[in-house]
């Protein structure tokens, strides 16, 4: 099937198999390898991207379902070389070690902050429940999300929500 998807601001039209998952379309066809695959049961969240502004696990969406949609991946967050505040907060708070889960964590965190701009620790932990990390024990990730929330408070020029 022929589909058109706008990914990180660029529009791509491609022929895809109906069974192809969005994550594989992003990685293999479009070349957006920042989004990664960590499991085959939608448990790990490493493949999280924004589909029309909402976080989704791109392993649980068919590529054809994204026809006409706007997708933001980790590679589309930084603007003009300036990191998104959540990316910056992950760096500032040592919220990653091997970094494999990080793209998904960051995409999920941005969506979480769009829903609740000032989350307490418990809210952050629940908001990240679908994203697994094996390195950090989550503490610094939680801290990073709360740090980003402070930096994104009114007065900041940084938008929340990628595209």
């Amino acid at each position: 099937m022929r589909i058109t998807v706008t990914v990180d601001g660029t529009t791509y039209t491609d022929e895809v198999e109906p069974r192809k998952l969005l994550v594989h379309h992003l990685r293999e066809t479009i070349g957006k390898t920042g989004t990664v695959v960590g499991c085959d049961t939608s448990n790990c969240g490493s493949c999280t991207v924004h589909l029309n502004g909402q976080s989704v696990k791109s392993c649980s969406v068919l590529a054809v379902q994204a026809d006409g949609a706007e997708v933001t991946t980790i590679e589309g967050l930084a603007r003009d070389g300036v990191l998104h505040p959540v990316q910056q907060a992950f760096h500032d708070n040592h919220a990653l070690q091997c970094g494999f889960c990080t793209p998904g964590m960051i995409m999920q965190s941005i969506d979480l902050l769009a829903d609740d701009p000032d989350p307490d620790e418990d809210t952050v932990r629940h908001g990240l429940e679908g994203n697994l990390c094996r390195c950090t024990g989550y503490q610094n990730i939680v801290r990073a999300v709360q740090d980003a929330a402070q930096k994104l408070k009114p007065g900041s020029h940084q938008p929340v929500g990628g595209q």
Partner: protein
Amino acid sequence: MTATAEPEVGKARLRKEDARLITGRTRWTDNLSVPGLLHLAFLRSPVAHAKITSIDVEEARHRPGVIAVFTGRDLAEAQGSLPCAWPITADQKAPTAPSLAVDQVNFAGEAVAVVVARGNAEAHDALEAIEVEYEDLPVVLDMTAAVADGADLVHADLGTNKSAHWVFDSAEAGTGGDVEQAIADAEVLIERTYRQQRLIPAFMEPRSVLVDPTGEQTTVWSATQIPHILRLMLALTTGTPEHKLRVIAPDVGGGFGGKLQVTPEEVVSLVVATRLGKPVKWTETRSESLLSAHHGRDQVQKLTLAARRDGTVTGLKVDLLADMGAYLRLVTPGVPILGAFMFNAIYKFPAYRFACTNVFTNKTPTDAYRGAGRPEATFAIERLMDELAAELGRDPIELREQNWIKHDEFPFTTVCGLEYDTGNYEAATAKAKEMFGYDALRAEQRERRERGDVVQLGIGTSTFTEMCGLAPSRVLGSLSYGAGGWEHAAIRVLPSGKVEVVTGSSAHGQGHETAWSQIVADQLGVPFEDVEVLHGDTQSSPKGLDTYGSRSLTVGAMAVLKAGEKVIRKARRIAAHTMECAEDDLEFSGGKFTVKGTERSTGLTDVALAVFAAHDLPDGVEPSLDSEATFDPDNFSFPHGTHLCAVEVDTETGFVKIRKYVCVDDVGVVVNPIIVEGQVHGGLAQGLAQALYEEAVHDESGTLTTGTLADYLVPSAVDLPHFDTDRTETPSTTNQLGVKGVGEAGTIASTPAVVNAVVDAVRHYGVNDIQMPCTPMRVWTAINGGPTDAGGLGGEAGGGLGSIDTSGGVA
């Protein structure tokens, strides 16, 4: 050249590595491609033990996109036997371990055929067209049954399921007394059998390998912890000349010991790529990973602790059964041996005997998993110390203090013959108790018990040490390990004054690029940003023994430091020549050589440029400002710490909630406090997971019932608490940096702290043991007087508690 204003070592430097990781500009193996790439998919055995009577791959060969299909028989000559580098005894039994099964499968998940196709999806599609007929053999799952007379055999040709029997006896070794005498003389005996459940490393990046044989050298990219060891082992296993192999570990998404391996898939990928003359890639699914990447732990520990009524421990006897699974992988037999030296932990009891039988079963092979042997040992002794305290009506911390090595007794030679260089258990414990609010929590615990609160409070203590910095090569040799414990490094000062550091220690999340830059910046007086660290490629980093066992800083960074010393020595000679003074007249500081007592100076950058120009060098000095060095430690290092955990146990549901977790670790000198803290957090998460959540479970047919992340419970952010961490700093005297290693600390210490807390919360119900993971069902059952091994995540047949003495369970 700008001299750094303050020392880099000790500074909370944000990581260099993050820039690519937070923006998705990463080189995971599965992100890589080369022209003409083909994809591999493996067909895996659905049964745990069977003869292969036939494999029909004809239909699969004709499926769309399929280039070739190979069975074990097709590759038998080329695939070799997978290596085991640690024969712990001369008479160790080891089966042939083919990468693709040839006549027989010995665990569910063992690969039996491989499809090569143009696309990954086509390769997986074609697996369905392969017909395999199996003739079932009896399945051996329970270690105790496996070593009984007349047991069914995993490998009939070996004639036994016992791989090796290894003993350390302090009386025989001359390092301590006779444990049987200690037991005979004991006023108190604590006898228990503990089970270390089988765990799965579950690194987040699935394993992946890409082999390109089309160049002058064959290049292997692999998500591995051990590019150097892998290169050698692939050469030895497949007969590929070593100099024709280049192994690259690009960005690697976690390891935890799980990528310390020469995998069947790496060997098959190399063999298939070579045979076809085409590049191939294989990336596992998570289900494949859980099933066939090696598992960890899986021991049954029979323990006897001897003590006097006054609380003095007089001896410990350990009898282990260690599950090897179906084959011996790279260091499988040695994992319990690493633990053998840690059962005595921080205590100075005088008699010790350790005996271990390594057992084959029809399960996924085991091997190193975070801590490798040491968490198992620490769990046992720390649980026993709590049981002794309960028996004697003593406070568990006070009892530990009575038995541990005092600060002024270091260096101390243990009952195993290890010399602990430094430590201060008093300081770490005092700090931890204060942070924890120990006395207040004990008071609350008493109050809740008296009140008969539905939610009971438990307090768990764990004091630990481990041996890091693997290892002095001569010691590894004495333990029959197949390699040394040195590490290699090189430093190249480029003509512009920028510095390249080459390290044999290959990182997968530990922040080597940052920490090594800090060390070199201080040593050479160059800016942190001017240092580039190269690792994980046998071409740019030709020598090394890679990353495991918390050896990177203690051994790897020491090699870097030695290489740096050589660079400074050479630069000094050149600077003295240029400045026409004696070498001894020069002081080196902040990147500059200064003539003592004068303002005359020249920078390292000037020297580097002079070396490049080579117009006027001292006689016999080659025009380069670089050096290489290896470091082989004289001893292990011994980080230690005190961990305290408070849990709330709902006695009506058995649900355990961690109320507070405090730890004070002493890892010697800290190069980068945020990296250290991060390593501790991650370690704690894995240790807590063993205590409360994770267990690889097989059903009675040997099928892994926890074969997806929906069943195998890797904890999420919701499942883990906030950790209060701090540290004391007692520098190691084993190495010049004073560092001790930190990667495994949290995992080793936290499991017993949590289980001690859970048992403590419900001890007044007559409970003195709960099998890990302490699931609500197990805790509830223990409170209500049932057997403590009930209520796992699924079937327990493979767990092997059936015939083990559980009298130490519910009182």
